[in-house]
Structure formats: structure tokens, C-alpha cells
């Protein structure tokens, strides 16, 4: 059976599943239960500046009856006394010495505050520090959180302060509320951070209540931009993760992946695109710590099937397959094929192709069931019909190359080949 054992900068954990810095990791009672459930590590909810929270704090986006496809919060960093947090961190480490204990930090914006906070945290025996340069709400107005992460110069300065004091590994957590995470990532690496984690939440308004006309979450008749997370943000996180994995400077440090991870498949995808560990929050907030069971079992079973013995066998394995558009092979051509034995005649492929793509599906009227077939000569191989089809493997994409050789756009132009065959 595959081993899920993880070594992140010398921080060992029985599996790569860490709970992200958030309410599930803000106190001993939660963290002990998470460890009992099997989580490999936690990133303790951000300590630092003094805050006061409001009510309400969360809102979400539902989709076609499924709840919390996207999740949003306006909660600030830990509002519990620092001493209590430090005491509980120490106890958790003592009770579960084999688990990773990372502490998220966001000190007031001066060197002395950072140094003092780091000294106190290291004193607990914590294994690592995560710098919260990402919180997009509340703290930014005080020049902290995302306000640091959005400016590579400030980020570099703060990381330098941290590195002056830190004796344990430092992970810098990046905000996605930038046009690219790479500049801040580079600044942090150049300033000496030993690792990166991403993404933090994305600034959002989850919706407006159509009765009260007040956006969510409603705090006494007003709302504020929150941090968006959950399954909806995963694709954005994966893209940002990949840019970090592909940059020659940021690629030098290990990455802890975050953003909408709820299943072992999500985790495997993050790891294939360069994450050594993954951090989970929304899914645990929705379903509780028990989800770690399938995260571990599913990942392990998949690794067995793929022949991966340890997680380092596949971390980053998919990174090289993400390339620039102009490197793609123009001669690669696929067309859709509908399996008439599996088709349920719902017409979704037809109307999607007709109104939304390239009018490549033929409708032969029937009562009550129409017959749908692909006009292969019209099909551009866009995948849309396959994506909307509700029946598993009813529509498949069949390879029909336009030419034997690999031909990319640059070469295509160079040869002066004709455009627009449609």
C-alpha cells in the first residue's frame, strides 16, 4: 500500500492533509479532535494583532440545489487571547507529536511586533510558521493581510523581518487578489521564506438578498467584501499554483496547496500541479473532520492503482503538461461521437451545440424521442456536448488527426498555412 507520509521542510506528518488556518484550527478542543480523526497537521488560526469580530460572518453560494458551492467569510484572525492560544498549541503538540503544527501569524506592521510574536510561537515547540499575507477583509484596512501580500516590496520587507527572528521553517501564504501571485511569491522567496502556500480567499460579494436588498452576509443592515473559498475557487487556485510551480524562482521552494479542496481527487490534482501538502477548510467546516478518512483512503487507493509508492512520486508531475497556447498541436483533432445505445434523447448536447457552439449535431425528430447524431465534418471537437451530456461515456471524443506531424501555431504561421477551415 502506498505511503502518505509527508516531509515538508523536515516537518513530518502521516499524510499531506492539513487543516488550513481558520475556525476549525482556532483552539485545542477542535485541533485534538481533528488529530483524532486523522488529520496530518494543522495550521493554527492566525495569531497576532488584537481584533474583535462581528456577527454574522459567513455566506455562501448554492448551485442547482447543492449548498455551499462557494463560501465566503468576513471573520478576522483569532480573537482569543494570545497566551491561551500559545498554551493550547503547546498541549496539542505534546499530545500528538507526530502531527504537523504550523502557526499562522499576522503581527502588527513593525519589525519588533513580528520578532516578539515569532519568539513566543517558537517557544511552544511549533514546527513551522505561516505568514498570513492574504486575509482580504478587515485586516487589509489596517495595512495587514492582503495589503502586505499585494505589494511585493512590503512583502519582501516583512519576510526579511521574519527571517531575522525565525528558527523554524517559514511558509508565506499568498493572496489571490492580485493579477499574478508570482511577483509576491518571488519577493518572499528572495527574502528567504522556505516555502509558499496558496491561495488565500478571493475578495467577493456572494449575493444580494432579494427581499432586503442587502448583500450577504448581513451585519445589521450592511455588508462588506468577504473572502471567497470552497469548491468554486479550486480552478483559480490550481492555475495560480501552476504559475508558482513554473516560475524558476518560486519553483525552488515547496508549496502547500489551498483552495476548494474537499476530496482526495482535488488533493491529487493540487499535488500533481506542485503542492507537497494540501490545506482544507471549507469542506471540513461543512462536513466536519471525518472527511479526512476518505481523503486518505481515496488518495492511497489511487496511488496504488497508478503505481505511486510515495507522494513524492507524483508531486508536480502534471506541471510540464501545462504549456502556452501557441505550443499546442493544431493537427490534433477530435470529434464527438454519440453512443446511440446510451443516449437518453434529452437533447442537451443538441441545444448546447446549436446555440452555444458550432451547430454540429443533427436532430431527427421523433415522438417523443428525437435522434441526435454528430455531423463529423462540422464538429470542431470543443467537448461541449460531452460536458453537458448527463450519461456517463455516452458521448466520447474520437481522435481524427488533421495531419501526422506535431504542428504548433508558430510553425503554422511560419509556413503560411490557410486559416479558418470553419
Amino acid at each position: 500500500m502506498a505511503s502518505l507520509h509527508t516531509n515538508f521542510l523536515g516537518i513530518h506528518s502521516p499524510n499531506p492533509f492539513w487543516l488550513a488556518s481558520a475556525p476549525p484550527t482556532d483552539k485545542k478542543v477542535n485541533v485534538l479532535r481533528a488529530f483524532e480523526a486523522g488529520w496530518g497537521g494543522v495550521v493554527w488560526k492566525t495569531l497576532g494583532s488584537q481584533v474583535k469580530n462581528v456577527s454574522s460572518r459567513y455566506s455562501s453560494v448554492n448551485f442547482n440545489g447543492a449548498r455551499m458551492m462557494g463560501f465566503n467569510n468576513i471573520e478576522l484572525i483569532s480573537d482569543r487571547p494570545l497566551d491561551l492560544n500559545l498554551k493550547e498549541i503547546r498541549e496539542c503538540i505534546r499530545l500528538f507529536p507526530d502531527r504537523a503544527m504550523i502557526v499562522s501569524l499576522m503581527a502588527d506592521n513593525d519589525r519588533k511586533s513580528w520578532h516578539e510574536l515569532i519568539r513566543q510561537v517558537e517557544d511552544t515547540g511549533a514546527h513551522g510558521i505561516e505568514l498570513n499575507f492574504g486575509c482580504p477583509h478587515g485586516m487589509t484596512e489596517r495595512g495587514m493581510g492582503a495589503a502586505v501580500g499585494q505589494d511585493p516590496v512590503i512583502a519582501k520587507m516583512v519576510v526579511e523581518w521574519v527571517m531575522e527572528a525565525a528558527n523554524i521553517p517559514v511558509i508565506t501564504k499568498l493572496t489571490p487578489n492580485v493579477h499574478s501571485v508570482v511577483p509576491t511569491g518571488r519577493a518572499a522567496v528572495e527574502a528567504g521564506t522556505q516555502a509558499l502556500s496558496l491561495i488565500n480567499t478571493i475578495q467577493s460579494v456572494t449575493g444580494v438578498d432579494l427581499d432586503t436588498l442587502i448583500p450577504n452576509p448581513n451585519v445589521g443592515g450592511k455588508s462588506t467584501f468577504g473572502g471567497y473559498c470552497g469548491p468554486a475557487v479550486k480552478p483559480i487556485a490550481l492555475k495560480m499554483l501552476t504559475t508558482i510551480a513554473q516560475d524558476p524562482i518560486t519553483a525552488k521552494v515547496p508549496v502547500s496547496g489551498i483552495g476548494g479542496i474537499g476530496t482526495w481527487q482535488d488533493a491529487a490534482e493540487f499535488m500533481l500541479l506542485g503542492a507537497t501538502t494540501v490545506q482544507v477548510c471549507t469542506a471540513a467546516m461543512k462536513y466536519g473532520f471525518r472527511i479526512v478518512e476518505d481523503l486518505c483512503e481515496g488518495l492511497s487507493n489511487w496511488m496504488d492503482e497508478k503505481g505511486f509508492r510515495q507522494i513524492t512520486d507524483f508531486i508536480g508531475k502534471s506541471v510540464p503538461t501545462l504549456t502556452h497556447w501557441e505550443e499546442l498541436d493544431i493537427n490534433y483533432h477530435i470529434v464527438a461521437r454519440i453512443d446511440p445505445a446510451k443516449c437518453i434523447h434529452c437533447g442537451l448536447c443538441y441545444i448546447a451545440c446549436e446555440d452555444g457552439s458550432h451547430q454540429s449535431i443533427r436532430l431527427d425528430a421523433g415522438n417523443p424521442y428525437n435522434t441526435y447524431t454528430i455531423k463529423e465534418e462540422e464538429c470542431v471537437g470543443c467537448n461541449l456536448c460531452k460536458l453537458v451530456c448527463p450519461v456517463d461515456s455516452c458521448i466520447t471524443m474520437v481522435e481524427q488527426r488533421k495531419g501526422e506531424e506535431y504542428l504548433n501555431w508558430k510553425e503554422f504561421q511560419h509556413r503560411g498555412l490557410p486559416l479558418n477551415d470553419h
Partner: protein
Amino acid sequence: MAITNHRLTPSAYQQNFSDIHPPFETRDAALVEANRCLFCYDAPCTKSCPTGINVPKFIKQITTDNIKGSAYTILSANIMGGGCSKVCPVEKLCEGACVYNLMDEEAIPIAKLQRWSTEKAIREKWPLFERKEPIGKKVAIVGAGPSGLSCAHALSREGIDVTIYEKEAKGGGLMTYGIAAYKITPEFCEQELEYILSLGGIEVKYEQELGKNLTVSDLRKKYDAIYLGFGVGLARQLDIPGEELHGVVDAIRFIYDIRSQGYPAVPVGDKVVVVGMGMTAIDAATQAKRLGAKEVTLVYRRTEEEMPCTRTELDIAKLDGCRIVWLAAPKEILGTPPGGAAGSDPTGRVTQLVCSVMQLGPPDASGRRSPADTGQTFTLDADMVIKATGQMPFQALVAASDLPNQQGKISIATTTTASSTATTLRGATALKGIFAGGDCVNGGKEVVDAVQAGKDGAAAILQYLTNIK
């Protein structure tokens, strides 16, 4: 063995006749099912609905909390969409065509979702329809059943003044009087009727019966057009000895009594035999059982393959404990001799039903294998025989009114055609200004078919009235 009423306690009646398909209790429950809908394009469910309700659209509207829009989508295609959600044999219509069946998954509960939207509209009396300014045309409709009401609503929306003549004391036709009470309550029928009439421009004159206090020729003189939707009514006779015995009743009358008199008042036997295997036969058998009959047996001269009722209906009868005897045709009803104390029993009472054992021969005109007598017989003990072998058109009435017909079924044009000399309108009879639809034309189909016939009739009348301007 005896035929008696008041067999059960009030709570037992209540339970036996409670809603067989209870509605969704919560919005969440409706949403779970509504969200399962795939939103098919050119949807098989819609194509399988005689009124062409845009099913995916109204279900989508439930998912977006646009219940008003959902109800409008349904009711604009089928003004009796509320009643139809309760009485339609959806297993052979919309739900039977649901593409989930092809995945061997549960079909979307379309009827239940339709009920969710329409009941709310009817209960809360949403004014979803607006009547156009009156255009000074008057149309008479005979029969306040599904086809007449559907026609009336469509015409009134266009500003035509409609008068409906109804022979019963209540409107709704077979919906009110001819369907098992556990499917649709008389109270709901009244609410639905009220909702339809709330549009305005429709007057219903009750206890006005064609051939009694009403004639087609009189109506023709007073109105710009007439729509006939008086349905069918006469139960088909068995034409066997003993049919006059006390205890032999027809299913239509039996169901009518249940709906008009209330459950406790309706007498039922200990051993009831129902002849036939259509929807009405099932409604009669199951309700006899639910009224407290000890044994109910359905006899049918063909087999399950040929039965007119749906599988779902048959299952209701079986679950109610009704016994089914296939390939059995009634031959003779036996009874006690006439007499009784002081002539109290002038005809004698049913004691037994003799049936011929049948076998299937070659297909007949209906395409189903025809039953043939084997010569063998068997006898069932019975104190009540309910005849449910179909209804007959009002042949004498139709003939007396000089209406073009085939064996009493009014003949209408089934397509709209136009030539240089004349335009034939779908729903029009050969008589100028007289239109017809529903059971009196088709001989007896579903409520939803009658509603569509009413829509067709209204469209034809509108075109006719426009042309004669």
C-alpha cells in the same frame, strides 16, 4: 351478504379516501426533485402531454422560486393543470416519457411538481390571466366539464362573453363527478372551477340539460357560436340475463354517488364484482373496497396485456386487496326471486355472477387479441355487480339535435384546411357555428385530452368569429 352503507367509522372513511399521492410538504422537498430535472430540449415529457405543457420550463421555474411563472407556464397550456396533476395517468404520458426511464432511474415526479405550483396559484387565487376588452361576441358552451371550461377560459381571455350550460348542480364534469375521491376531492374541484371562472366573462347556468330544457337550435339563434362539450354518460350495458336485479349498478353512477353524497351514505355490498378493467373499473373497485366491501373481484375478458388501465392503476387495485380474474366474461347474473315482504324487493337480489372462461384469438379492430368463449363457465358469489365496461355516447340526444355523428360521437374536422371556397377549422362540425370536443367527440379519453380539445375548439371559434365579422 347484504348491501349496506355506513360500514365504517368517520376516521376510517377519512383514511381510506385520503390523498393517494400526497403533495410535497416543503419547498426543500420540491426542490430536490425539481433540481433533478435535466431540462431536456424539445422534451419528451412535453411532447407526451396532450396539452403540450412546457414541463422543463415550469420545473426550472420552481428551482428559481418563480412559482408564479411556473403556474402560468402550466395553466396557460392547460387551465385544469391543477386537476390534471392529480388525475392524469402520467405513467403513460409525461412521466412515462421522462428520459430518466431510459437510464432506469426514477422519472421526475412531474405531476407532483405541477401540483406544487398550481395548488399554490389556486389556493392563493393568483390572477395570472387577464381578460381582453369584450369584443361583443357571445358563445354558448354546453357542458362545464374539462373541455367546456378550457374552451370557455380561452375564449373569455380573448374578450368573448361565454355562457356555459351545465346539466348538473356543479361544474367540473367528470373531474367533479367521475374520478376516485382519493385522487381528487370534490372540494378541490370546486376551487379549481372557481379559479377558472375568476377570469370573468364566463357565466355558468346550472341544471340546464340539452334535450330537456335546452336545444341546440335555440342556442344557435341566441349565440354567435356554440361549443358542445357534454361528454359521454350512459354506461354500456352487459346485455346478459339478470342485469335488472337489485345490486347491479353502473360504475359511473356508483362513483357519482360517492362524490355527490359523501362516503358513508353510499351503500356497498359484502362481495362486489366489478366488470371491466379500464380506469373507471379500477376507480369503482378500489372505492368499493375503501367503502368497506369485504371482497372485491375485477373480472376482465382479456388479459393484462390488453387491459385499458395502466399498470399503476392495476397496482392500486391489487394493493387495496382486489382480486383480479383474467379471461372472464360475464354470462349471466343470478339472483333471488322477486318478492320480499310487501313487495319490497320487486326485482330480486343479486346472488351470483356466472362468467364464461375466455381465450385469446386473433387481433381485433383495436389491434388487441380478441377474446373467444371456451364454452366453460365458473360462478362467483356476489351481492353487488358494478358494470364498468365503458360509456356510451348520448346517441339519441345527438341524433335528435341533428348533429353530424358516428354512432353518437359528434363528427368534427380533425385538421384545419383552407381551400379557395371554404376553410375547415379543427374542432368545427359540418354545421356552421357549431363546434365540439372532448368525450362527446372522442368517445371518452383523459381529462387532459378534453382540455386540449377545448383549446382547439376555442381557437377554431376565434378564427370563425374573426372571419364572419
